């Protein structure tokens, strides 16, 4: 009858939650992102978040470079400068390069090995949400003010002990305020995220490869993920212990690093670098994996010396545990220790060289397409060679007594982390963008992006090698006239803005591309590995049928057979078609992990607990309750509706 409103009963909590899960499972709406356990979505979340932090770290760098462009700066004061460089380093290492690598692990590993998802999908989501919450916690420290005043008075609360946080400087008597606490607790939280990811990917790779995919038929990127995962598993506990010791000293009057009570400052350095050196290989091995995937596709030849590239990666991982004190040559360890670590550091150059020669061997005799992904990979080879060689120069211990703590070191690690890792990661973005979004990024903008970034990078960091040799120390907020440093610093600042412009080009490229139709084919590059055999973007279940793997680069062998001379010819029509077998398959009958919001709930717990340590122990209890509540819900939730 007209005018009578029919009352609909409000849904119960249980019904709402079921509705949310249902919506999430349909891959529509905000809940499908919040409750996702799909590795492809988690990969996108990691990538976008890491990119936001990249912009934040980049802006911090631009302010630093503005300050240092001229003698006696005048842009920021030493206190602000110290907090900015601390956050720049911490952000770029822990909130950018590691999560971007995690993004690639997430997006690629399951579809490269022919699996539905990772071994522990909810743990995977938990890793991401913990990373986001830890990263936000650390970044929030900017706004908390410091003993000198509030944020409104220009006093930043961010940590100011450097990204390496040497004791005793970071003890509470020398670093008052909460900055270092945010740093230490934030890193502990990020460590949880990394550990969870390390276990998840190691288990996935060991257990979930498609039938026929032996370890030596895995794509090289998967090998690098496996090696990196083990490095993470063994390295994170070391820094966890160091951070616990630092927090005990700061918050509970511990004396691990307090000299007056018998503590040892050098203990911090040993522990930090025992973690820190494997950490830098954690940062570079995934990038090397990406390069090892791009080069074969764009030269239409297999990776040259695949077993040697695998073994050199494994060798680097093992040897990385034996070189840590090369960060400590000037701390007075003595001639025997310095000689031992000098020799081990010189030797770790050998497996790195092997990779570079094998990459050149891959390109040699190929049919090379000079598209954007290949340019980034080639840029990596050149830049990493310089980075590796300057690393050898640092291992010349007597000369390192001059180079240590100067801009020569700053040049070296930016060479390998930016010229190396970042270039490779960008190359990976251009390469796999069509796979995950169904759209090819603009090639013209891509070339502009690459050349701007490559030239800008060199203009920024090569002058720093000169500055180091001219005696400019690191971590100084300003310098005097007359030391010959002004011109090189100015050039470096100009370069930094060139890099910023190239990043803008990248953003424009992504935005314009996402507005276009998703019409990329499954295999736009004529590639070699399994992920290119499924549609772009892949369906939620990845593979309609579990692939039966018969060789390394199995997808390539489905497309081409080799004649007796070794020349490949395309398989006659009727063989496997990329993506064809999925058409019309609506996914019924394939069991997928159910979406879940419990990982997000659980992930909030640690950050609230961290705030409890900093501000009020009541929050510690609240955070613990949230964490336990999240874990219980996680453990007890029904598997599927």
């Amino acid at each position: 009858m007209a005018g009578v409103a029919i009352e609909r009963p409000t849904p119960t909590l249980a019904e709402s939650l079921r509705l949310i899960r249902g919506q999430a499972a349909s891959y529509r709406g905000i809940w499908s992102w919040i409750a996702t356990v799909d590795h492809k979505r988690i990969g996108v979340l990691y990538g976008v978040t890491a990119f936001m932090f990249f912009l934040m770290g980049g802006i911090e760098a631009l302010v630093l470079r503005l300050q240092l462009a001229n003698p006696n700066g005048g842009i920021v004061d030493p206190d602000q400068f110290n907090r900015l460089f601390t956050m720049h380093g911490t952000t770029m290492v822990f909130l950018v390069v590691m999560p971007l690598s995690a993004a690639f692990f997430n997006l690629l590993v399951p579809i490269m090995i022919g699996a539905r998802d990772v071994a522990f999908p909810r743990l995977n989501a938990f890793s991401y949400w913990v990373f986001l919450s830890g990263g936000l916690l650390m970044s929030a420290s900017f706004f908390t003010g410091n003993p000198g005043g509030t944020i409104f008075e220009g006093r930043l609360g961010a940590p100011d002990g450097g990204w390496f946080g040497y004791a005793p400087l970071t003890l509470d008597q020398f670093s008052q305020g909460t900055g270092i606490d945010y740093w230490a607790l934030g890193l502990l939280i990020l460590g949880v995220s990394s550990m969870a990811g390390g276990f998840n990917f190691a288990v996935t790779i060991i257990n979930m490869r498609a039938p026929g995919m032996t370890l030596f038929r895995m794509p090289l990127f998967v090998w690098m993920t496996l090696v990196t995962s083990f490095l993470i598993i063994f390295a994170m506990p070391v820094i966890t212990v160091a951070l616990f010791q630092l927090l005990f000293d700061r918050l509970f009057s511990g004396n691990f690093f307090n000299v007056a009570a018998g503590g040892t400052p050098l203990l911090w350095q040993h522990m930090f670098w025992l973690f820190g050196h494997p950490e830098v290989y954690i940062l570079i091995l995934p990038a090397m994996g990406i390069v090892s995937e791009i080069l074969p596709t764009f030269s239409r030849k297999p990776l040259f010396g695949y077993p040697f590239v695998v073994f050199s990666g494994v060798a680097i991982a093992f040897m990385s545990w034996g070189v840590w004190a090369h960060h400590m040559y000037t701390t007075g360890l003595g001639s025997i220790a310095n000689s031992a670590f000098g020799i081990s550091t010189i030797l770790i150059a050998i497996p790195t060289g092997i990779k570079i020669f094998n990459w050149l061997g891959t390109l040699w005799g190929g049919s090379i397409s000079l598209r954007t992904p290949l340019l980034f990979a080639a840029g990596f080879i050149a830049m990493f060679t310089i980075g590796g060689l300057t690393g050898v120069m640092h291992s010349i211990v007597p000369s390192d007594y001059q180079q240590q703590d100067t801009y020569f070191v700053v040049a070296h690690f930016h060479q390998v982390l930016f010229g190396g890792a970042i270039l490779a990661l960008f190359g990976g973005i251009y390469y796999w963008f069509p796979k995950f979004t169904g759209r090819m990024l603009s090639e013209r903008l891509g070339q502009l992006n690459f050349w701007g970034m490559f030239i800008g990078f060199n203009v920024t960091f090569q002058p720093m090698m000169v500055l180091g040799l001219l005696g400019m120390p690191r971590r100084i907020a300003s310098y005097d006239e007359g030391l010959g440093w002004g011109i090189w610093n100015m050039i470096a600042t100009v370069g930094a803005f060139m890099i910023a412009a190239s990043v803008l080009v990248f953003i424009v490229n992504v935005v314009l591309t996402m507005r276009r139709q998703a019409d990329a084919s499954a295999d736009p590059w004529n590639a070699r590995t399994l992920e290119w055999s499924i549609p772009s973007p892949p369906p939620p279940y990845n593979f309609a049928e579990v692939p039966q793997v018969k060789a390394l680069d199995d997808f390539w062998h489905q497309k081409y057979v080799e004649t007796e001379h070794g020349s490949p010819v395309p398989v006659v029509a009727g063989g496997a078609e990329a993506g064809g077998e999925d058409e019309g398959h609506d996914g019924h009958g394939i069991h997928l992990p159910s979406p879940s919001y419990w990982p997000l709930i659980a992930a909030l717990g640690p950050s609230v607990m961290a705030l409890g340590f900093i501000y009020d122990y009541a929050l510690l209890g609240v955070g613990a309750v949230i964490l336990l509540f999240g874990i219980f819900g996680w453990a007890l939730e029904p598997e599927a509706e």
Partner: protein
Amino acid sequence: MRPSGRLLRLALALAAMVALALLFAGCNAFGGDQNTFAPEGDVAKQQRDLFLVVLWPAIVVLCIVVAALVYILVRYRRRSEDDPIPEQIHGNTRLELAWTIAPAALLIGITVPVVMGIIELGRDADEDALQVHVIAQRFNWIFEYPEITTPDGELLRTTDGVLHIPIDREIAVDLTGLDVIHSFWVPKLAGKQDAVPGRTNSMWFNATRPGVYAGQCAEFCGIGHSDMKFSVEAHTEEEFQAWVDEQLEGAPAP
């Protein structure tokens, strides 16, 4: 691309590398008071020379790798999408051995001068060396002469950030920090050693020419780190003795 175009690219790559090398070599033309390429002490000279021993082979290796990369990218460029798929070469064990063993031999060879340099720089100073204590604190330097006592029984010490030394005599330095870790660095005379609280590190160095040499703290120590500068003033032996006498005369009467 025509062969001459390829060659041009190659030549450009090599030329760029040569330019870089010249830049490094010409560094002291641009340098100031902390230029490690214009050493005025035996330790800094050894350090620069050892660096050059490695720098030149490194530049050669870089040139080879970059030239090879540029050459390969140009020579094997895909001209059209109809180009045939190249031969699928998987590897070459002999090449692998060659490019593992050759660099390994070069690198192991380098360890010899490195260890020798470590031992030479890490040895105790000569018997007739001048003893100096360097004490670092936030944010200035204290220099003490344990062998020189003022009339009122104290060790001679300066707190104005100038370390006076004689030339041509080794200086035996004992370093420590009072609060956080600092680092004692006079680039033109020697590399740095850290001043760590709770321990005493030692180093030796000398100056071979009279002059004032700039120094700076080289371990991040907080808000005053950028300003924690000092200098080393090297005198002839007579002038140094004169300075010492002046200090001892000027000491307050007991």
